[in-house]
């Protein structure tokens, strides 16, 4: 006997209840606090802030907790929350030259004003599981020194003096915003950068890696990578001047790329740019490589048909919230469409069989096969 | 504090009133020749209630508005700016234009969209003395058979329809009533 499936609402409620239970895990284990996630899983928090396009470590930590550690799900929670926030105004561009650097390295010069500052990096750690952490060992305080005073100049500024690196003219033009206007191709560099900085880290990494392996190779050196806090300022029309509204941590990467020159440009170094919320080193380097690859047209280079040069391809597929939604939607019921295909395939088979049968019925000179 | 005219006459309950107003606007745009009530705002004279309500429903800082002729008063400009934040513009740049037919000027001035983006065209809100379901004969999308609507200038509107899929779209307003004429409508003079 057939009984139509009913009670969808109850099933959904029950699924949500079970999900909440699974999220909590065994109740004899202490529950994670938002502060613990924020402080101890800070790179996850940074990634969620970057791809969620919202700088709020506590909310990102909450999203990670709610999402059971699924970072794309956490990014989605942050994005959905972000869209409901009213916009009071727009900040001034941050001045990364004024950054208080926790880390600052250059691969192009052995030393430069401001020095090479390793900072808190995994770079030279040996990737050996530290079983002391499993035993909740206490961490010894790291040695400290007096911080440098004064600004740390950008490495590319030194090349500019020699006129040997492509100039990036300053502009006061208002950049577009892909969260407020529909994407249109060809796009603009500000929109490309916005798309990349909130793009999926894995996707941007893969695209960047493909350029290194020869798909539109652009010979990148990390001119500079810096991580630290910058002040955010906003103009208040009623006051007539800008005030500090807070401080954010960002990672900035500028690549210096070999360039032979083109029909329109003299031989000189060119640049790729990456800027990402939080300590997000891998993402910002990858972003700079992909940014540089996407600039082929502006620099008069050849389109080699490489995926990373294809703006429409890169920008249309970089967003993991879009991608995951569409990917996962195929688990929704599609039985109406499937039914129509089923009928079609049955019909085509029936017709093919009929054709074969009528051919077999005809006398054949060749005899049976 | 005494009530200043530019601060009054907006929606009392924007989400609800705008929703109702949009449904009227959508219905007439989907059914050329139909006339609907459209109210909720009290704009300064000489803007009609219907035209004012359309402006509050559809305009904001993202849309450029052209006030043509008699409706281009200090009071109307201040009212529009206060309630919508819409920047004022010349006819050639406008997303929306409001005024009487004669004052809106040549249709050739307005944006008609591009072949790739025909949606990037102006919507004209034409203030009329009255709306009548008589006069020109309309046919095309949204119309079962034919419909009748009095139009201010049949040849000009026929020329606009001939640009299809480019062209301007029109609302006709009078008091608290509204009708519409999208570019997709074919127009002939009733015999």
């Amino acid at each position, binding site marked *: 006997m*057939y009984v139509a499936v009913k009670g969808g609402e109850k099933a959904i409620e029950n699924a949500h209840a079970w999900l909440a239970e699974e999220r909590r895990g065994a109740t004899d284990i202490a529950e994670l606090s938002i502060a613990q996630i924020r402080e101890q899983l800070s790179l996850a928090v940074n990634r969620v802030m970057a791809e969620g396009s919202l700088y709020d470590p506590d909310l990102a930590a909450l999203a990670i907790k709610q999402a059971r550690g699924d970072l794309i799900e956490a990014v989605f929670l942050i994005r959905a929350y972000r869209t409901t926030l009213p916009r009071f105004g727009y900040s001034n561009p941050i001045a990364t030259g004024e950054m208080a650097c926790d880390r600052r390295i250059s691969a192009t010069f052995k030393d430069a004003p401001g020095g090479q500052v390793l900072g808190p990096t995994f770079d030279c750690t040996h990737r050996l599981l530290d079983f002391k952490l499993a035993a909740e060992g206490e961490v010894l305080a790291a040695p400290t020194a007096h911080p440098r005073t004064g600004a740390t100049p950008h490495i590319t500024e030194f090349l500019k003096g020699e006129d040997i690196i492509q100039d990036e003219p300053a502009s006061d033009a208002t950049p577009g915003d892909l969260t407020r206007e529909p994407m249109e191709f060809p796009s603009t560099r500000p929109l490309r950068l916005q798309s990349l900085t909130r793009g999926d880290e894995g996707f941007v990494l893969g695209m960047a890696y493909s350029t290194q392996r020869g798909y539109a190779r652009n010979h990148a050196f990390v001119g500079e990578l810096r991580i630290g806090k910058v002040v955010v300022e906003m103009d208040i029309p009623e006051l007539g001047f800008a005030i500090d509204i807070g401080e954010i941590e960002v990672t900035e990467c500028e690549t210096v790329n070999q360039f032979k020159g083109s029909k329109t440009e003299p031989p000189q170094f060119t640049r790729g740019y990456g800027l990402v919320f939080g300590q997000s080193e891998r993402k910002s380097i990858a972003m700079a490589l992909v940014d540089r690859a996407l600039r082929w047209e502006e620099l008069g280079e050849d389109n080699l048909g490489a995926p990373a040069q294809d703006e429409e391809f890169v920008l249309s597929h970089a967003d993991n919230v879009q991608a995951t939604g569409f990917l996962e939607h195929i688990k929704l019921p599609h039985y109406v469409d499937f039914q129509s295909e089923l009928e079609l395939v049955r019909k085509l088979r029936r017709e093919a069989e009929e054709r074969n049968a009528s051919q077999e019925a005809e006398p054949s000179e060749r005899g049976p096969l | 504090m005494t009530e200043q005219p530019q601060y009054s006459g907006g929606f009392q309950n924007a989400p609800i009133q705008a929703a109702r107003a949009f449904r009227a606007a959508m219905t007439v745009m989907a059914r050329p020749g139909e006339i609907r009530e459209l109210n909720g705002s009290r704009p300064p004279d000489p803007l009609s209630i219907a035209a004012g309500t359309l402006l509050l429903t559809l305009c904001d800082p993202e849309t450029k508005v052209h006030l043509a002729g008699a409706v281009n008063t200090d009071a109307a400009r201040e009212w529009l700016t206060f309630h919508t934040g819409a920047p004022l513009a010349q006819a050639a740049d406008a997303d929306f234009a409001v005024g009487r037919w004669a004052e809106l000027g040549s249709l050739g001035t307005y944006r008609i969209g591009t072949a790739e983006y025909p*949606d990037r065209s102006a919507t004209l809100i034409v203030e009329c003395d009255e709306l009548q379901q008589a006069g020109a004969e309309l046919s095309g999308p949204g119309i079962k058979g034919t419909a009748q609507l009095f139009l201010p200038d049949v040849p000009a509107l026929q020329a606009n329809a001939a640009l299809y899929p480019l062209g301007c779209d029109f609302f006709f307003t009078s008091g608290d009533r509204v009708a519409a004429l999208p570019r997709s409508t074919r127009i002939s003079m009733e015999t």
Partner: protein
Amino acid sequence: MNEYNFAYLDEQTKRMIRRAILKGLAVPGYQVPFASREMPMPYGWGTGGVQVSAATLTPKDTLKVIDQGADDTTNAVSIRKFFENTAGVETTEETEKATVIQTRHRIPEAKLREDQIIVYQVPIPEPLRFLEPRETETRKMHSLEEYGLMHVKLYEDISQHGAISTAYAYPVYVSDRYVMDPSPIPKFDNPKLEMDAIQLFGAGREQRIYAIPPHTKVVSLDFEDYPFEATKAEHCCDLCGAEDSYLDEVIMDDAGNRMFVCSDTDYCRSRREAGHMGRLAGENAA
């Protein structure tokens, strides 16, 4: 959810969507770009339809939400709940009583009326997308009304299979100008696209809105010698006996026995209430 605005979206977002809907109605079948917002439900699950519905609903509306023709599929339940919570509108499962119907993959069997609006959830709004993946190219094709590629594809189907092998999301030609994707409805539903109600289409992830006003000419693409055919399973509904409705095929037991039932659950229910009975109606009495 009381802290959210009526129908969830903020007013500026609704205005932006409303402007796109009006332009969509003025150019039937043309896909209007709009700045789709990130909704609290995943892309691909109806975010476009939800945004269009949110911009269209008034408190007086009665909303019906269906997925695969059914009111009780989980996604339909979830979207209906969303609008009950955020817009406080009445909801119904009866097509007759609804003023706004949001749908995924079906058009109800009952003829829709002048005073109704149907909102389709659209995954890929571009009918040419599977022939040409680039937006820059397909936009050009629409602007030039250059649809040769689509005809070539359909013709290749015929030469290869003896029939057009598109069974759902079957492309249509709207008002003699734009080729349009009617969303993944089965081609059985295509003839209903010429209707009395207003039809709105929302694609959230792809940021497109389009529309068909009432009584608009909508033609399913075909060839003179291979005319369009609206097909369905060659059965009657086993519950209500309907011969004219689109059917779901249900596997009933381990032996693979099948039954066929109306995909439009409200249509089936109303027929059964009116006393119509199908082959297995008695068995379903429990």
